[in-house]
Every structure is written in C-alpha cells, then in structure tokens.
C-alpha cells in the first residue's frame, strides 16, 4: 500500500470539507502515515474466500408500513439553524462570483 503524503491529505481534506493550514496538513500527513502503517496488516489477514461482515447481527427486511407519522413544526425544524429566512434554511452563495 502506498504511503500517505501531504498532497493526499490535502485531497482528503477537500473531500471531507475541512479547511487545513499547511502546518496542519504536514502534521496530519505524519500522523496518518504512522496510523496507516500500523493497520496495514489488516489487508493480509483474510483470504479471498472470507466474506465481509457489514452488520454485526444479520437481520433482513426490516421495513415500515407506509403510514404518516410525526412532523416537526416549521419553527422546530428551523430552531437550530445558524441562519434562516422565509421559513427556509439560508446558505451563502453556492457558486463563486464570476
């Protein structure tokens, strides 16, 4: 497995939407390299014949009948919002001014 470098971390930080300073990227790259190194044995632990487990207790077909339940009031829905207007959540521009 490839080692993790600063550019990788910068790309990951972008995917994860966390702005990071250059210092932070350097520090994170060093720490992640160590962590990734320590977990790499995992990829050699199991052969192709071992199935994956995504859920610890296997259940199937847990479904709900199509019956309307509770709703929040508009006030409750917006109560935690950093910003709102006209009964809606308000967010800054999506595209940069061009």
């Amino acid at each position, binding site marked *: 497995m490839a080692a993790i470098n600063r550019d990788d971390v910068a790309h990951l930080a972008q995917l994860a939407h966390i702005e990071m300073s250059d210092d932070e990227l350097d520090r994170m790259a060093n720490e992640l390299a160590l962590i990734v190194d320590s977990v790499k044995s995992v990829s050699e632990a199991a052969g192709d014949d071992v199935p*994956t487990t995504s859920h610890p207790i296997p259940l199937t077909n847990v479904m709900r009948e199509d019956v309307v339940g509770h709703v929040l009031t508009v006030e409750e829905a917006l*109560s935690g919002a950093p910003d709102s207007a006209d009964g809606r959540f308000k967010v800054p521009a999506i595209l940069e001014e061009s």
Partner: protein
Amino acid sequence: MTANELIRLSASAMAAKLAAGEITSVELTQAHLDRIADVDHGDRGVNAFLHVNAEEALAVAADVDARRAAGEELHELAGVPIAIKDLIVTKGQPTTAGSKILEGWMSPYDATVIKKIRAARMPMLGKTNLDEFAMGSSTEHSAYGPTRNPWDLDRIPGGSGGGSAAAVAAFEAPFALGTDTGGSIRQPGAVTGTVGVKPTYGAVSRYGAIAMASSLDQIGPVSRTVLDSALLQEVIGGHDPFDSTSLTDPSIGLAAAARLGNVKGMKIGIIKELHGEGYQAGVENRFNESLELLRSAGAEIVEVSCPNFGYALGAYYLIMPSEASSNLAKFDGVRFGMRTLPTEGPLTIERVMGATRAAGFGDEVKRRIILGTYALSAGYYDAYYGSAQKVRTLIQRDFAAAFEQVDVLISPTSPVTAFKLGEKLDDPLAMYLNDVATIPANMAGVPGLTLPGGLADEDGLPVGIQLLAPAREDARLYRVGAVLESLLEAQWGGPILDQAPVLASTATVAEEAN
C-alpha cells in the same frame, strides 16, 4: 440517613427506600444535585457534567413523590436519578457531543432511550462529559475540558464516557447512560472502579445517539453494581421501530440473572490473546485473583484462543473512522450547530462548510475523518475497508468457536490502569491501544461487561475485569458478574469505591474563581 450516606447507596437500594417511603425522590435528587455542586466544578473539580438539569430533575422527582403518595403503581426505578452521556439527544437540555460544533444546540426530539427514561420517571440530573463525538479513551478530547478521575484527580477517567463513569464513581449519580463503540463504557468503568455494560448490538435502540460508527455503536448502562446495570438495561432495552438494527427480543430477565447468585458448572474461558504481554503486572494479578474466585465458586476455567483478535485493533481503526467520516458529514453549518465564515477569500457555501468544520472539530475528530475518507476512497476501499470487514468475519468466527467451548469469556478490561492527564495526548497510537481488549466485542456485536477487580499493586488504582457472552446472551454477563462482584466485595469488606479517596469540596474554590 444523611445525604452523604444516601448518595452512596446502590440504585436498587435507593429504589427500595423510595418504594418503602423511607425517602422521597426530591430528597434523593437534591442530594445528588448538591453533590454535583460540591465536587464537580472548579479547577480541581471532577468536571463530569457539561450541563446540570436541576429544575427539570426536581420537577420529575416531585411528580414521582406525588404519584407515589397517591398510591399510583410506578416503575421500579421511578424517582431514582440518572445522568446522561452528552452524545444522546434530549429535549429541553443542550446536546453537544463534547464538540464546539454543537455548542448550544437543543434537539427538537428525544432519543428512544430518553423516552424510556422519561416513561420510567427517572429524574435526569444532566449531561455528562465525553471525548468529542466519543472519539477517545481519556475524555481529554472534550472541547469542554477533561473530566478527572475521582481516584486521582490528575488522572484520566477513561473515555469516551469518562463523564458518566466519573459521575457514578464520585457519587454524583447512582447510574448513567453511556455509549460504547470500541470500549467507551467498559474502559472508563475499568479505570474508575465502576460497572459498565455494552449490550448485544441491537439490544438497545441507537435512535438519538449521535452516531460515531453505526455498526459498532451501542448505548448501555454505567453503574456501581452489576444489579443496577441489569435494572437499567431492562429499562432502556427492547425493540425500537425507529432503529432498523434493533433486535425484537424483549429486554427481560437481566436483573433476575444478576440475582441468581451461582456459577456452579459454568465454563469460563480465558482468552489467550487478551492478557499477558502488554498488560500491567497489577492488572494481571487482579485478573488471576478473579479467576481463582470463580473457580472456587464452582466454575470451570479453561483457556481458549482467538487467533484473529490480533487484527481487531487495526480493522477497528479502518471501519470506525470510515463510518465516522460519513456520519459526521452532516455537521456543516447549514441546518444546526455552529457556522464559521472563512476569514479570507470568496464566501461560498463550500468555503463556509470547510471553515465551520475546521473551527468546530478538534484534532482527533479531524484525524479520524481524514483517515476514514482515505479508507473509503477510490482505489483504497478494497484494501482497507473491504479487508477490515473480512477481519470482522474472522473475529466473529473466533467468538463462535470459543463459545462452542465455554459459556462466557473473561479478560482484563483495559491493559493498564488510569494514566496521567496529558500522558498520551500526543501519541494517538498509544491512546488507541487502551481499547485492545474491548474492541473485539464491538466488531462481533457480542455483549461485554466490566466490573471492578480490585486495585493494582503498583499504583493503587482500579483494575477492570471484562466478561463477554454470545450475542443475545447478555443475561449470562449479569449472572457471572454479580457472583464475582459478591465474592470480591466479601474479600474487600465492601464496595471497591469505599477505598477511593474522599473528594475535597470544590464549591468554594469555584466561587472564589468567579
């Protein structure tokens, strides 16, 4: 009975006194609120609570007293107060998850376990401290300052649920709710000399527990006695249609198992891979002592091997951050919580999300989000996430093979006793090792219990003994745990917490600081 004697009772003893009319819930609740005011605040306070819910708790207590006076049939635990880990959402009290990003946020809905606590009429004392988003093993990653271990205020109370464990150990609450993703109930229990249980995955609804790693998270009880945890799990457990991974099994028979009082003929397995090298000598000694006591009580002790447990920690540190990176994506400054604007450059929503998450998350949270994003990203998924899920299968097979041979498994809960605050803060890998014995249970979904096993010879600090049972056999943990607890307490001449130092009042210190 003095207030100080009252708060040292077990929850079940408090319940009995309430039922007998010897005390009122208001009296009991007030005694705990006073204790919190006395020892929790200030520079040398325990700092177990992030929010104290005095008004509502006393109102619920008064309501219980009135109903009891009117002859109403009440839940066994009605009127017994409880503390709630601040990862669980509550109406009427802030929920922070120990993070700046949720500072001041009030949930418009209750977690399912909170609905059950309300239905049982248990006064909620407040919300307890934790590592941010439950990510840590020391509660030092809380954005609101670390919790201190009541056994030694310069040491960590374990994590992530250090607040709940410390509150119970410091007699600020008779019991509490915790959450356990890789050991966050059990490891704090071990280092604070308290009891904690991670139930079978799905035995307790996760609805309203802020998710770290969905396939590993489980809410469970934190208490001072095995019976108290059993009583509390019966309250919070059972099927919940709001959680698709919730089991349909009824939450019954746990307290009865704790009261059974014998282990004669039971087979108990020592996990070869979970003791010995890497475990503190004092931890090993107390562990061996417990084995001896169980043997003397008629249990058969055998050794079993779980060869793939060696991969558990590595696989955990791939699955947990992967799921966490996804679960924490919603914290973006749009619908709830804090919003931070970028200080320079264009003001777009992308930048606002990036700036909010940069300012709102602490280092450990960022580390795990980046690690998880990496493990799930194109080109690495199979090697990391995929392989880790295969390891999960291997761990389940190890458990299955072990439980063919024995009824329960036993190990130390944590390889070490409580370490000093700050000691491992800059060494994530050393911190992660604290969960080496607790993680396999989360990976396989099986239940695990920790109870105090005595004090380590070298530092006089609590040691935890972990019991593990097959999925859906939580009752076995309570049966064996209660027997071992009574044998140990007979040796000590009382509960382990009787040996804890008396906490100095910090109330005046706090006032002077104001």
